[in-house]
């Protein structure tokens, strides 16, 4: 069995992994990227629509374009990229980590002093949101449908219903319309759309696709291929209301009901998890509770914008390189969220920190909101938001001094 050794190993060559690898390499570390697929870019490869890179490149790039810029940057550096390589298992060693990988070249071990997980996320499935009824062909996750159309060039169906008004669902509604599939409508169990307002405008309104709020799909009907779905109105806790069922004929159901961070590989190492993000607790450099183990991009927290993924991953890569060369992590203080927020990331701050961005989402729509971060009663950051929406990730900048007291977030609507 072949064994190789690097300062920093990155698992995943999506935007997060590539950005982290670039900055770790620039910091002087030897770096390897491991990716399961035959081409770099992660999920961006299939996001052929535009709107990426507005913050970072001030341009409306499409997903593959953004990915290509990044992978060209990677190839300009002495970074080894192992494609078609699947990280099967990770072990903690005295000097760092061992990754056991399967690839057509063999089963090999890669040792590293610092490990960056950039494995992205997976989608919730129809079963996880309790869609019942029969099991015909024609039920897809939005990401799967996107992959079929954009990577393989096959159309999942001719007449589609979309469940979930998150951005991926909205984008697929437009994409399927453009490819000649009739999109009957987008159904959303909540009373508010989950996606950005601009996506409702350019993905649904442009193509005259109706959006049904407070409505969900409850049942699939069909023996061979999907023939129809049953939809029903929902109450405030998103449960279907009996007696409001309606049958909508369609041959395809596309489900876009949320993403789950993928961290199965490192859970066995005993990393501390955050219930709110369902991902590891990380510090401002994306390091987990295990020294030298980092977790960045969508497997850390599901970001809206790839630009933020790249930005936070650059910070991560640089730090990983330092930790690989035995820099000390510094003492950690907790960030204590407030009840209005669904989560805050990072969950801990290493001191001394200086200026740090905290990312968060509100639980519900909040207007005229002032968020304050304090330590020992001293205000270390404050920001006003005219509106906060769960669909949109927001941030607040804090500047943490040497104090070892926990950082408290408090907010109020004015």
């Amino acid at each position, binding site marked *: 069995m072949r064994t190789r050794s690097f300062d920093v190993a990155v698992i995943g060559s999506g935007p997060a992994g590539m950005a982290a690898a670039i900055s770790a390499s620039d910091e002087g570390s030897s770096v390897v990227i491991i990716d399961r697929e035959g081409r770099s870019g992660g999920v961006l490869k299939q996001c052929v629509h535009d709107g990426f890179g507005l913050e970072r490149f001030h341009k409306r790039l499409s997903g593959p374009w953004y990915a290509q810029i990044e992978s060209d940057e990677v190839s300009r550096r002495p970074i080894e990229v192992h494609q078609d390589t699947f990280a099967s298992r990770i072990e903690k060693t005295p000097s760092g980590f061992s990754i056991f990988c399967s690839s057509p070249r063999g089963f090999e071990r890669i040792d590293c002093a610092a490990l960056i997980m950039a494995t992205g996320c997976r989608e919730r499935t129809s079963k996880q949101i309790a869609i019942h009824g029969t099991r015909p062909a024609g039920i897809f996750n939005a990401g799967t449908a996107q992959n079929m159309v954009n990577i393989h060039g096959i159309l999942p169906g001719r007449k589609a219903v979309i469940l979930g008004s998150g951005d991926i669902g909205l984008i697929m509604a437009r994409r399927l319309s453009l490819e*000649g599939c009739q999109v009957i409508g987008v159904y959303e169990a909540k009373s508010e759309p989950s996606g950005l307002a601009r996506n409702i405008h350019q993905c649904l309104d442009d193509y005259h696709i109706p959006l049904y709020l407070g409505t969900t799909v409850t049942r699939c009907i069909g023996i061979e291929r999907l023939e129809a779905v049953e939809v029903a109105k929902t109450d405030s806790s998103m449960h279907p209301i009996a007696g409001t069922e309606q049958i909508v004929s369609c041959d395809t159901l596309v489900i876009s009901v949320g993403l789950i961070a993928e961290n199965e590989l490192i859970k066995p190492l005993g990393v501390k998890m955050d219930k709110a993000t369902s991902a590891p607790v990380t510090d401002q450099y994306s390091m987990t509770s295990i020294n030298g183990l980092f977790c960045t991009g969508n497997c850390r927290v599901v970001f809206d914008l790839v630009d933020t993924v790249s930005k936070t991953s650059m910070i991560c890569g640089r730090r990983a390189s330092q930790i690989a060369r035995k820099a000390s992590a510094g003492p950690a203080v907790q960030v204590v969220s407030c009840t209005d927020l669904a989560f805050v990331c990072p969950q801990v701050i290493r001191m001394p920190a200086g200026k740090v961005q905290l990312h968060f989402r509100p639980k519900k729509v909040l207007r005229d909101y002032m968020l304050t971060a304090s330590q020992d009663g001293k205000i270390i950051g404050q920001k006003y938001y005219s509106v906060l929406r769960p669909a949109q990730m927001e941030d607040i900048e804090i500047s943490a001094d040497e104090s070892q007291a926990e950082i408290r977030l408090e907010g109020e609507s004015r």
Partner: protein
Amino acid sequence: MTFRALERRIKSISPEASASIIDGCVVLKGKCKSYSQVLECGRLAARLHSDGVVNDLYVEGLESKPMYISSIKDEELEAKSFDVCIIGAGVVGCAIAREMSRYKLSTIVVEKEYDVGLRASSRNDGMIHPGIDLRPGQRKTYYNARGNRLYDQLSKDLGFDFVRNGSYVVFDKAWNWLLLPAFIFRRIFNPIDGIRFYSRKKLAKLQGSVASWQKGAMYLPSSGIVCPYQVTISLAENAYSNGVRFSLDTAVLGMQSKDGEITSISTNRGTFKACVVINAAGVYSDIIAQMAGDRFFTIHPRKGTEAILDKEAGYLTSSVVAKIPLGDVKNHTKGGGLVRTIDGNLLVGPSAEETIEREDDSTSSSIIASLFEKHSRTVPALTQRLDITYFSGTRASTYEEDFIVRKGRRVSNIVHAAGIQSPGLTASPAIAIDVCRLALEILRAQGINARPNDSFNPKNPQRIRPSRLDDEQRDALIQKDPAYGRIVCRCEEISEGEIRDALTRPLSVMNMDSVKRRCRVTMGRCQGGFCTPAAAQLISKQAGIPMSKVRKARGYLALCPVKEAQDENQEL
């Protein structure tokens, strides 16, 4: 109960219903107000201990859906003739096929679905039951005990996974201990290997996830688990390799007979002859008996729903933790509980619902919720959050609630393996031996003396699972064949090589769900979200068909290539 008493009670349930005795069987005719009345009458009739219950009671306006018949229509089997025809490729039909392949006979298995083992045989708990809750004297009990013991050798020969991981039957009330003498007494008639009793303290030590208020348990080490469709497929593969012909997408639609003998069998793929017909049609076995003119029993379908939990929940138990099946006796279930599957997931269930539908695979959220409710009383940490999917299956129960393994009553060349409800998976290898013997007797009576098949090979080609090898072995395997290194399904860690193998094994079926059942691709926590397109592409390559012609199960996965959408759009 006397026949008179039965008549009276039937009338009191439904005045428009009547009972009669025809040819030794109780025949119920007429109308009921509800399906539960139909069931009640049928159960009463079974108490007469006649030769069988034929329950033709109906409820106005209540009709079950017609049987699924593949849209394929051709003359594949027209005018052919076989020594043996097995109807149904469930675990029972496939086990019989393998037994028959030990003889030099022309044997055909006809199955209405696109693959073997799609009905009850892929929709169950996968438990190799110890048989504790079965009554002595029943055929179920007899075949379960024999079948259970055959599994060790069978799994070695056929290469399917089998573990005797034991089961705990938990006592939730202190008085359950009073049942102990009854269990011990039963053992005299129905020997169960290695049974042990654990106190509350010992139970807490062995199965930490069981609620502390439980009062102890009975431990049955002979209890085991398998993957039920892997068993069925393995049996079919072996039968096929030993010369049995399988005709899939082939539904038996009728039979012609003369002088108490079946002369031909009609299907959507032609009409053919067979010297012996074996009825292993599961929930349709009474309909097949009727086609043959030999109906003496009635199937009342009983649906069971199960939830599958993520491997993460595997810590809850590595065995089976079941409730003592007291309250469930009248429902004839095994009480259900938590079953650790052979692949490390956890099953919760099954439920037991009487239904008129023989093949309704739908599920409902209320049933799933009730499963969690029920079983979290035994294992409090159980949570629906880790649920990755769910399914349902239908048991082929008769009113006698027992298996039927016998020659026809009125027809000389049929053998019934019917009413094979739970624990049919466990029992199937033993049932197959007897059915084979009966079939040979019939053939002999017809002057056909089957000789042993000298080239019979009891073993299947080995299944390669790189992720189960140690690191060095795995590396060596990949060096020899790089396809075993390229991972397609990330959740289950299935390589391209394994998918290719699934597509080239004996009796392979070029379709997503068939490949999934053969190598677990798309079966993990993302449920194919990532690997569906890649797996479909491999199938399309191997089968030499475009991606848009790859089927998921019965229906097409995708409907057209993007390129064609435009032309289709103009047509619409």
